[in-house]
């Protein structure tokens, strides 16, 4: 199988595998206890925290580990809104945020709060000025913006948004799930969230960083773990592995990004040349190095995924009926681009040029056959 779905989950980095196996033996005990094995687990946990903090540009005591990126976002959004209730109940988000942000916003609205969604351009980028206007409205308790979009790879104007938020005295939650470890993280965030399995760590580890001085109150019942930010016993071996993967990925990023980005450019150029009636979506320049998304006219997304899978290619799609939903992706909808026949190709670390070429060789005939089956000439 040629795996081209790194944006769903990046395969485990070898450094994470080694760290995980060793920490399963040395870091299994309860880090909150006082005997030798517990102290070892605690040391491993705090070393992992320091390592992650360094890469993301935070202080160790600002970093908490969650059980997923989604949980980090839910806690980040709802906890910050909770902490700022006296200021107001307005939440501002971009239109193409991850569903975890939008679901947290819905929860906030169900509780009587308000949410304003800032639209995006055709390339999926939030307009920085519109965002700045939205956060400057009175009663704004929190603003959320992703570093980069998970479906089309477009980078968001986080530095500008952070400046506007600072000016307005509004905390900014930055969802860095798709870029942490791959790109330097923007400064100016008040809350930062990320997910280890997106950078080659194991699943089940998320990061919630809350800047000193940001008001935050847990939406959950109180628990002692992770400085009272995240409930439950930490998965120390997985956290150790996540930190090892983050360090390794960040060290390799400069060289690997250039390679992956050139392969993405090849896909962006070749797919419209090889397949008629294709729209490549997302910003061609202001983008992540490893994600490219396109939509094929007159093709059903589910059929495309099935045929690509049969031919040995693992990709994902924002078309309806491809992700247990009858709705197309809210990202593609907000951009106003074709939602059917959609394919997201996201390149994992170490993917070969040959794999990308094999994908490009297989795609035209698959699209042609699906179109023919629907009577499209």
């Amino acid at each position, binding site marked *: 199988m040629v795996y081209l779905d790194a944006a769903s989950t990046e395969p485990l980095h070898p450094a994470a595998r080694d760290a995980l196996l060793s920490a399963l033996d040395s870091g299994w005990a309860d880090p909150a206890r006082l005997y030798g094995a517990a102290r070892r687990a605690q040391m491993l946990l705090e070393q992992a925290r320091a390592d992650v903090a360094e890469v993301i540009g935070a202080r160790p005591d600002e970093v908490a580990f969650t059980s997923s990126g989604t949980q980090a976002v839910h806690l980040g959004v709802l906890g910050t809104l909770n902490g700022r209730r006296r200021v107001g109940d307005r939440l501002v988000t971009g*239109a193409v945020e991850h*569903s975890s942000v*939008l*679901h947290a*916003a*819905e929860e906030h609205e169900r509780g009587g709060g308000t949410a304003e*969604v*800032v*639209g*995006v*351009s*055709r390339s999926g980028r939030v*307009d920085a000025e*519109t965002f700045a206007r939205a956060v400057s409205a009175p009663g704004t308790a929190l603003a959320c913006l992703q570093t980069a979009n998970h479906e089309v790879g477009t980078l968001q104007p986080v530095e500008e948004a952070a400046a506007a938020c600072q000016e307005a005295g509004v905390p900014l939650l930055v969802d860095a799930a798709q870029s942490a470890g791959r790109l330097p993280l923007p400064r100016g965030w008040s809350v930062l969230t990320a997910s280890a399995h997106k950078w080659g760590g194991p699943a089940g580890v998320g990061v919630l960083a809350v800047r000193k001085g940001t008001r935050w109150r847990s939406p959950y019942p109180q628990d002692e773990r992770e400085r009272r930010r995240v409930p439950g016993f930490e998965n120390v071996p997985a956290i150790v592995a996540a930190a090892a993967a983050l360090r390794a990925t960040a060290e390799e990023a400069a060289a690997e990004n250039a390679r992956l980005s050139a392969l993405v450019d090849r896909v962006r150029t070749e797919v419209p040349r090889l397949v008629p*009636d294709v*729209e490549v979506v997302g910003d061609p320049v202001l983008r992540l190095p490893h994600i490219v998304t396109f939509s094929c*006219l*007159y*093709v*059903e997304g589910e059929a495309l995924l099935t045929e690509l899978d049969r031919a040995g290619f693992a990709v994902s799609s924002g*078309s*309806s*009926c491809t992700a247990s939903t*009858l*709705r*197309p992706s*809210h990202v*593609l*909808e*907000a*951009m*106003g*681009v*074709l*939602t*059917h*026949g959609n394919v997201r190709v996201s390149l994992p670390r170490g993917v070969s040029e040959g794999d990308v070429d094999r994908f490009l060789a297989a795609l035209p005939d698959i699209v042609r056959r699906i179109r023919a089956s*629907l*009577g*499209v000439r």
Partner: protein
Amino acid sequence: MWRRRSGAGGGETGEPGAEAVAETQAGTREPAALTIDALGRKCPIPIIMLADQINQVPMGAVVEVLADDPAAYTDIPAWCRLKSHAHVGSAEIPQGGWAIRVRRNY
């Protein structure tokens, strides 16, 4: 998360919605030369039907596609943009779904 919001989809360029707004304001809803009933059909079928049949109307005439697949609401205007036809506007219809109006440009 599926609510439709104004200002999305590059709306600030004024591209897809501009003519629709103008038509509504002027109250000049010209009758469609052809109505394609794609209710109950999933994308891309409504678009394939539109692409097949748009040449049956005279140049400059309006085709109306009735569709209730949520993807059609986004995809028919996107098809117009890619194929250089004009998306005139989309209106909700009583039976659920939309009447999506397209002007043949060539």
